[in-house]
């Protein structure tokens, strides 16, 4: 543990550590997506998953292909797209709220028939 901390301070954290963080973030997102009842919470879960993917992009680029920039750019793209997606999703959620006065995902089963 002490070793890890020292490495962190000296800038030599192993890649696996980052991947561990992103893994935890991703599955936290998956769990949130499946278990939360509020649409807003589900949206936040989706953001978590997206950010986990971002971290992977950056980490793989940094550690595996240090001379190249594609991973970083992809991360930037993803952030932009995530922002757009959030805006759209919020708009949809607001409309749902206007119609149903609720943002509970369980009540959104009108489309099944």
């Amino acid at each position, binding site marked *: 543990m002490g070793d890890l901390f020292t490495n962190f301070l000296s800038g030599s954290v192993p890649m696996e550590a980052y991947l561990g963080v992103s893994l935890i973030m991703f599955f936290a997102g*998956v769990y949130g*997506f*499946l*278990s939360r009842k509020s649409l807003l919470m*589900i949206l936040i879960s989706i953001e978590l998953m997206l950010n986990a993917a971002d971290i992977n992009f950056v980490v793989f680029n940094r550690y595996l292909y240090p001379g190249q920039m594609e991973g970083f750019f992809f991360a930037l793209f993803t952030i932009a797209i995530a922002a757009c997606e959030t805006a759209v999703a919020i708009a949809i959620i607001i409309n749902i709220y206007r119609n149903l006065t609720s943002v509970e*995902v*369980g009540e*959104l*089963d*009108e*489309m*099944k*028939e």
Partner: protein
Amino acid sequence: MQYTLLILLLPLLSFIVLGLVDSKWKPKVAGTIGTVVLTIITVLSYFTAFEYFTTARLDGVYQKIIPFHMEWLRFTEYLHIDLGILLDPISVMMLVVITTISLMVNIYSLGYMKNEKGFERYYAFLSLFTFSMLGLVVATNIFQMYIFWELVGVSSYLLIGFYYTKPSAVAAAKKAFIVTRFADLGFLIGILILSFYTKTFDFGILTSANPAVFSGFAGVTFLGFSALSWAMALIFIGGAGKSAMFPLQIWLPDAMEGPTPVSALIHAATMVVAGVFLVARLFPIYVDYTPHVLHGIAYVGAFTSLFAAAIACVQTDIKRVLAFSTISQIGFMMVSLGVSGNGGHEGLGYMASMFHLFNHAMFKGLLFLGAGSLIHAVHSNEMSHMGGLRKYMPVTHITFLIACLAIAGIPPFSGFFSKDEIMAACYEFSPYMGAFMTFTAGLTAFYMFRLYYGIFWGKEHKHEHTPHESPIAMAFPLVFLATITVFAGFIPFGHFVTSDRANYDIELDNMVAGISVLVALIFIALATFMYRKESDIPKKLAKSFSGLYKAASRRFYIDEVYMFITKKIVFNSISRPLAWFDRNVIDATMNGFASSTQWTSQKIKGVQSGQVQQYAYVFLLGTLLITALILFI
């Protein structure tokens, strides 16, 4: 002669235009369009005839001209369906006949059908009919002929059923369509047999008198007759259906439910002679390879002509009388073709048949239009509602009389010349046939004058209002056709239409002509004696031959025989079991599929909960499963 294509396309165009606009225009506009188009193509047809008969001769023989030809559908090397225009003496003659009668009927209908509901529809159908009939006669191959043959049937069906709110008209239309369709089945099978062995549909090859064409038939027999005989006989059945030959004549009298101008055009002058035209078209095959079938045609024609003439003597509905008279006259044409040989004097019957077809179209069209004029005036078809009309309707009277004299075969009217040639051909075939046809011709004169006296003489019937002469639109066609009827006999027909397309000079056989005129005069005198004044002779005769009279007035129970065969035998023993099988086996299987599908979907529809998170959960599990499989297997 490329412009002949216009003769076909213009009526089609007029049908499409009139059919699409339906009632958006004033009726008068539709009538005018139809009539103008017909006028144009009539002029074109006359021009075609003029150009053809003045230029097309080579070594004294009229050439066949094909101004337009295209391949329409190609299936295999041999099986391909072409469309085209074939001009030869008979098709050019038919062009003239069809367009003339059609134009007259179009003009006549402007008056007759005035204020009828569906006036535009009527003109659209007339155009469709004209188009199909013209396409039929100029067909370059037997399959094109068949296509137009069916189109003619359809337009006939549509026009018979024009008053579609009247149940009898609907029934008549159905009957006409089914009976002719039934006959057309024979036609189709005949075409298929013929073209299977000859590997062609083309009339040019089929009638080229080249024995190699029919070499495929060598040794092929079925039930003791050669396959070629079967094919030609089956093709004749198609012709017999359209031309109302016994025993397929039952539809024609009922077809009189249609508007009278339609009866004049379709069921007297043009469509019903399609069968005659068909036999004439394939005549080289009949006469060279299957003479026994041709003789069969002669016997069928002869029997039909007598049979129909006998029925015509006792009918009281004037249109029915004319209908049976038409059947009888088509019988004459068939006989004439049947007894004919090929070429020169041998081919007299062929020439006579075509001549009679031409004349018959004119005077029978005239008779029907005259009948329409009478019906227009007294609002009834029944002879008993007429009588003494000659004072009120002079134009109709004179023209009707001319047509009666023509059909009875009195010189110098057109019918005399053509009928005389037919008689001459029959006597050359066999004296019995000649005598038989002479008697039938006498009967023709008798029933026509019975009709004439019944309508124009005799006791006056009390009318609701005084009958009046028809308007000019109706009177003009009458006068026009009457003029043709008076002068057509002097057309040197042998110069134009003969079996070998060479020149033939008609010589009147004084003996035959004398006998037939004498017989006609005797029968006319008999009719005059019986029907000119009110007398009880017809009633007495009807009483003393009550069995025969009743049978004839019920058309010899042929309809009843048909009803018995269809209703009792076919429906009960074939249709009903088939219907049962259809309902309880085929439909039930299909219904079983449907209901089991429905049952299954009811059971599994709970899976579709509409809960997004459930879907996502299943999706996740699936992903994990696939990942695991990829990783560990």
